[in-house]
């Protein structure tokens, strides 16, 4: 017979103020199996825990129910205490008398009655608890960082500096991401590439970092500490070991007219190219879709002229499988396709551009060498209109959320324009200026007060061309919704930040949850912002939500610390709340009939098929087996099982039905 001890916490007045704790203790003593029931002012305090430990020893208790706050709050505390007193920690349950009872009901007899019932449920449950041992699994101390933008770079460097090997996988030919395309950064106006490229070089040189550019993650199997990552290394058609990055191939390539992705199509590139001069690695890649050789079978100019004979036209994609312990997702964002904005004339008028294009125009390394020239005729625009919230906070046409970075970069763009074009005029149409951040509001004020940028509060309804100029029709809501018409030479749209095209597909492949906008979801919005709900996969940067650079870097370092913390342990221990398939002596072996409905229900692929063989090696029966490393303990398989052969430790059928028997 079980010897259950019930410990009722007053939580000061929080519980005792509403619930008659004396009556609960008295009622508990009448419950079958309960041999000891006391109340105390604060069970979680030091004396409270000592009281619990002493009672376990003196009264020879073998199971404990603590009736106090939510188990989500103090279950670990009391499980540790019971363990210290010599009982298996999983023989302790908590009845939630505070959040689910005293705080939500009036002081009245039904409340005390509910408290007694809640204790009774847990007494019935704890009597059927089995001693469990935490699951120990080894850890592969190597991290995979997916995405080579500033988030991935920072996370990779921090993990590598903490002493663990890192595999950094980037899908484009160079690391650097969006940040390498930016001209200058708010609120300091320091040059983006100047602060980024040293980090990129550090990544390339770091002994702990293996850099795979032009590569993609095909598949991720396994679980925390023990992932297997399948990576496709796309063929660059270049022998990277031989190539010294001299650039002759780029100069001699006869194909010249391919829109340059790095410059957002504002300039052209050849078919064999390095995306930008500071690219890491500084090795070209052949654009197979546009290369003359792949189209006609002739040319091979680069091969003939390469001084190190590094061109490999027959190179194939390579698939590699790596053992990985933790993953940092840093796959970044994209801006909303501007085809959404026909009312602003995007795609129709060359001089209506988006923010990324303006970054390239303003960048010293850009197609104009940093001079602001409009794309249509290369003339210096005398009046530029910036339209903020193009797609953001727009339920009907765009996304309902705020893209967060646009207010700041629009202020920066307008400021850069005023600095570069003397006598020019920048006008910004905005809804609100959201400049919360260190020195951010000061920056916007500076744009308005010192640089003379005009801010008009209102939306733009239409942009059309008239007499070689763009006419921006809007409204000034601060002047009583007065219609405004501005003749501009160039219009810049601050398009909304969105999740990557393949974010949903990637999330489903990795079993990471995502929000309605396909941004990856954190495990807890406040307290676990860099973890996902899948153990061992962490988040950094704008793949989670729109983020600016300082936030991205902070979060990447946070994710790196989580990975380093994981790797600092000799092995992993996990709560043993997992499913188990029943095993019986021969000739039954298991009540499992091998239908494997559980296998299709399991979200973690944790169910394996186990053949049971006789001594001759003949298969007698194939039954289900739960991989304890993969199982997360949701119990979906348990309710699916036809023969009740599979059960969930800690929430077994017996326990749940025992609870139901006493309601």
């Amino acid at each position, binding site marked *: 017979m079980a010897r259950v001890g019930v410990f009722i916490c007053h939580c000061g007045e929080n519980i005792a103020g509403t619930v008659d704790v004396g009556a609960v203790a008295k009622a508990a003593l009448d419950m079958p199996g309960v041999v000891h029931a006391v109340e105390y002012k604060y069970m979680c305090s030091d004396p409270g825990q000592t009281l619990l430990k002493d009672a376990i020893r003196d009264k020879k208790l073998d199971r404990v129910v603590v009736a106090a706050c939510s188990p989500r*709050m103090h279950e670990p505390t009391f499980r540790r205490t019971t363990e210290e007193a010599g009982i298996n920690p999983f023989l302790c349950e908590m009845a939630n008398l505070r*959040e689910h*009872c005293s705080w939500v009901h009036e002081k009245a007899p039904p409340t005390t009655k*509910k408290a007694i019932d809640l204790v009774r449920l847990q007494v019935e449950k704890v009597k059927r608890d089995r001693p469990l041992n935490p699951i120990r699994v080894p850890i592969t101390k190597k991290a995979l960082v997916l995405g080579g933008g500033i988030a991935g770079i920072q996370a990779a460097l921090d993990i590598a500096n903490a002493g663990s090997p890192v595999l950094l996988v980037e899908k484009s030919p160079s690391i650097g991401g969006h940040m390498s395309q930016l001209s200058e950064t708010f609120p300091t106006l320091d040059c983006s590439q100047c602060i980024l490229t040293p980090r990129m070089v550090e990544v390339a040189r770091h002994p702990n970092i293996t850099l795979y550019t032009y590569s993609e993650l095909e598949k991720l199997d396994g679980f925390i500490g023990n992932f297997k990552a399948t990576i496709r290394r796309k063929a660059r058609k270049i022998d990277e070991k031989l190539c010294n990055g001299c650039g002759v191939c780029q100069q001699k390539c006869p194909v010249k007219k391919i829109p340059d992705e790095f410059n957002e199509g504002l300039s052209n590139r050849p078919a064999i190219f390095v995306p930008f001069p500071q690219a890491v690695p500084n090795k070209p890649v052949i654009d197979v879709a546009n290369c003359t050789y792949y189209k006609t079978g002739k040319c091979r100019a680069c091969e003939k002229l390469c001084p190190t004979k590094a061109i490999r036209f027959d190179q194939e994609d390579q698939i590699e499988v790596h053992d990985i312990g933790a993953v940092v997702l840093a796959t970044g964002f994209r801006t909303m396709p501007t085809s959404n904005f026909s009312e602003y004339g995007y795609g129709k008028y060359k001089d209506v551009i988006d923010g990324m294009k303006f970054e390239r125009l303003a960048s010293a390394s850009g197609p104009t060498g940093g001079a602001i020239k409009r794309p249509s005729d290369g003339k210096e625009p005398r009046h530029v209109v910036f339209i903020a919230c193009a797609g953001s906070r727009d339920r009907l046409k765009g996304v309902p959320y705020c893209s967060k970075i646009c207010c700041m970069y629009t202020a920066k763009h307008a400021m850069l324009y005023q600095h570069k074009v003397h006598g020019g005029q920048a006008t910004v149409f905005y809804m609100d200026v959201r400049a919360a951040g260190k020195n951010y509001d000061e920056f916007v004020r500076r744009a308005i007060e010192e640089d003379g940028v005009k801010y008009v509060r209102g939306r733009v309804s239409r942009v059309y061309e008239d007499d070689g100029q763009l006419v921006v029709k809007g409204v000034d809501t601060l002047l009583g919704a007065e219609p405004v018409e501005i003749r501009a030479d160039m219009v810049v749209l601050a398009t909304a930040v969105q999740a990557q095209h393949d974010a949903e597909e990637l999330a489903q492949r990795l079993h990471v949850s995502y929000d309605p906008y396909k941004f990856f979801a954190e495990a807890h*919005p406040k307290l676990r912002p860099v973890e996902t709900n899948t153990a061992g996969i962490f988040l950094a940067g704008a793949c989670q939500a729109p983020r600016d650079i300082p936030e991205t870097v902070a979060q990447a370092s946070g994710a790196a610390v989580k990975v380093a913390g994981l790797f600092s342990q000799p092995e992993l221990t996990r709560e043993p709340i997992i499913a188990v398939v029943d095993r019986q002596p021969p000739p039954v072996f298991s009540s499992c009939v091998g239908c494997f409905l559980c296998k299709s229900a399991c979200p*973690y692929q944790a169910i394996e098929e186990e053949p049971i063989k006789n001594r001759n090696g003949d298969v007698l029966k194939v039954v289900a087996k739960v991989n304890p490393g993969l199982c997360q303990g*949701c119990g*979906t398989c348990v309710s699916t099982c036809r023969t009740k052969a599979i059960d969930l430790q800690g929430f077994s059928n017996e326990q749940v*039905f025992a609870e139901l*028997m006493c309601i």
Partner: protein
Amino acid sequence: MADPFEPKMTAFVCNWCTYAGADLTGTSRIKYQPNVRVIRLPCTGRIDFMMVMKAFSRGSDGVIISGCHPNDCHYTSGNYHARRRWMVFRDLLDFVGIDLRRVTFSWVSAAEGAKWAELVNEATSKVRELGPYKEIQQLAAVGID
């Protein structure tokens, strides 16, 4: 005079969304009717609908089932399994003769403390109007228990 009828309500909730949401109701001190007894499960996917039958046969007048919103499941897809199972089971319950007005299926996230209070109040008030679930005893006589 006899006490007015107070329904017995049983709630099956998942640990990650609705249980946490109900915790938030407590933290926010939002009051609701004290009739409900919560059975904590890891996930709504864990709900075997025999549990619902057992709750009724043991004298519950109403049952509440609540988990994470679709797409928000801690275990990725457990709530979808629960929803699919419920869609099938609901028809079966109806066929057997269980009063479906006594079962409330909902989603309450960890951030929806107020919604939990509302859900419990609405379900409890509805069942209070329906009165004690005496009909289940007749079903039990034909072997439902």
